[in-house]
């Protein structure tokens, strides 16, 4: 290619490269630099080496937030995957009713986290919430969803699943529609039961989608923040303080920017490591499968 052609090509990618550099690369590098400094919002920083990281690994609050975050991800991701797959299987038909329900189940995804937590506060609130009223009407002890350390984790998980189910459901629906109909007809002629058809035809065909959903949701749920801040405020007793909430509090309540950035870098590395590990595991699996 001649110089003119190269310049022309560069001109086409330049807008994206500029945006990418300034919005992603620059903050990423700046963040790494910041994490080696002692810095607050006023005045410059002071280089402290790995001091921030050393402090973090001795900080019980931070270590607990890692545990809390992973607990939440473990509660949310498998349930979310199974439920969204079940919904997709139920709604994968060309009827008007199915189209309406697809819309309804997807609609929660378009709400902002503020509205989602507000709605679930109405449902979960200990005194006048829907669940506690129902429990009381049935003469049962209401579950302390927002004031018990374990139950409040479940409150966050349920809220998050309700909020996030639309996208994985749509991904599964797209995956289901890729499966050619004649394979199901062949299965019908092969006397396959519904269960055998699901297990031997549908699920293997959805393997890639399952991997995608699990990877996306793991990365997303490790960054869980809004629900924790708005629904439980990290409580009771810090039991729902997630990593991002810890980072937020450190940066914008205690103004320790360097310390917060170091925590953010650790979260970043955790997400990258987990995603790569999942990817590697799947790749090995599909090689054993022999390609497609």
């Amino acid at each position, binding site marked *: 290619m001649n110089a003119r052609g190269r310049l022309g090509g560069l001109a086409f990618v330049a807008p994206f490269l500029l945006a990418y550099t300034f919005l992603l690369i620059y903050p990423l590098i700046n963040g790494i630099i910041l994490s080696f400094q002692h810095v607050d919002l006023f005045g410059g920083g002071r280089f402290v080496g790995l001091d921030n990281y050393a402090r973090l690994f001795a900080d019980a609050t931070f270590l607990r937030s890692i545990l809390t975050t992973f607990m939440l991800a473990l509660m949310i991701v498998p349930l979310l995957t199974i439920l969204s797959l079940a919904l997709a299987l139920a709604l994968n038909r060309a009827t008007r009713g199915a189209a309406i329900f697809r819309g309804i189940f997807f609609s929660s995804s378009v709400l902002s986290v503020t509205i989602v937590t507000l709605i679930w506060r109405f449902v979960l609130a200990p005194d006048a919430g829907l669940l506690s009223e129902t429990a009381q009407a049935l003469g049962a002890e209401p579950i302390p969803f927002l004031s018990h350390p374990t139950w409040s984790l479940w409150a966050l998980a349920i809220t998050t699943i309700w909020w996030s189910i639309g996208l994985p459901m749509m991904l599964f629906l797209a995956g289901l529609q890729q499966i*050619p109909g*004649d*394979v199901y*007809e*062949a*299965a*019908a*002629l*092969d*006397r*396959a*039961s519904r269960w*055998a058809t699901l297990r*031997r*035809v549908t699920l*293997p*065909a959805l*393997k890639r989608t399952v991997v995608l959903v699990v990877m996306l949701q793991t990365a997303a749920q490790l960054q869980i923040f809004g629900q924790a801040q708005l629904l439980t405020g990290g409580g009771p007793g810090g039991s729902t303080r997630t990593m991002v909430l810890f980072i937020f509090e450190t940066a914008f309540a205690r103004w320790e920017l360097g310390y917060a950035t170091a925590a953010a870098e650790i979260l970043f590395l955790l997400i990258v490591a987990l995603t790569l590990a999942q990817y590697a595991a799947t790749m090995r699996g599909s090689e054993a*499968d*022999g*390609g*497609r």
Partner: protein
Amino acid sequence: MASLEIVDVRKSYGETLVLDGVSLAMEPREFVAFLGPSGSGKSTLLRIIAGLETADSGEVRLEGRRIDALPPGDRGVAMVFQHYALYPHMSVFDNMAFGLRNAGVPKAEIETRVAEAARVLEIEAHLDKKPGQMSGGQRQRVAIGRAIVKHPRLFLLDEPLSNLDAALRMRTRVELAQLRQRVDAAVIMVTHDQAEAMTLADRIIVMNDRRIQQIGPPMEIYARPANTFVARFVGSPAMNLAPVDLVEGGGPFARVKLPDGAEVETRVAQAGLPKGGVLQLGLRPESVRVVPEEEATTSAKVELVERLGERTLVYATLEGGQPVTAEDKGASAVRIGDRVGLRVDGSAAHLFGADGAGHHAGAAAAA
């Protein structure tokens, strides 16, 4: 006992009628081809037999047992799909074994049957492969193998050769012919390719416009087409059809006059023809020969010449604009724009009445 019997099957999708009272009966171990253009209803009929579609009314019986209310897997039929429909995530062995496992066939028996089918189809070396690692022809064999291992009473083949390249198609055609010798079952093949139907089938069922147009052995379909549709659809290039007038006369056979004035003495019995009304003369290209001027019965202007090697097809127009396809020897000197003499072999001519029904030489009219 008849193998497959279909009695007055009707099917419509919403307002659109796709099968209008179709009936047929197959002999045991017979190979039948459903031949017709797209939208003729032939695939729908196959899917009704397989149980993948439900007929609105009518009956389907296989060896005396009524099967139209049974689920597809319980009918005793096996199908080879047009796009193979193999299970992409299963090995070739599992693809063939899946149906047998679902039917509760013992493991040892499954292995015997799959091994036997793999041997016959020469895919033993590929049993551990996934369909994605195989060529189109190999996948086709797996699809056939999956049908064979079930020991069905009836094989259903949906356009089995349409996805193969020309060389492989010829080879697979031979293999299908051999296959039917080996299996103790009837075979139905859906195709829009008349050469496949002619070479493979014992009987051809020509379908068009929701109905069966004709049922018969290949040569009968070719030699005595029931109507103008069959006449035009079967045979390549298509039969010439020209409007003609019946020449009044006392002979036992009909004598007709082409628009350009040329007369043709047919061997179609005058007695069977409809009185009055319009007639069409049907002539296969091989019964219209290009000949020297002095032997000609009529002449035409050449529009297009197709040299096929052993013979030459000459597309021409008669005086008055009537198109006609004629045949010449392989080393033909005819060129576009030439005027050539044509000699019509009246003994091979067909006549069609205003209703399209065919009348042929040698016997009473076959309606």
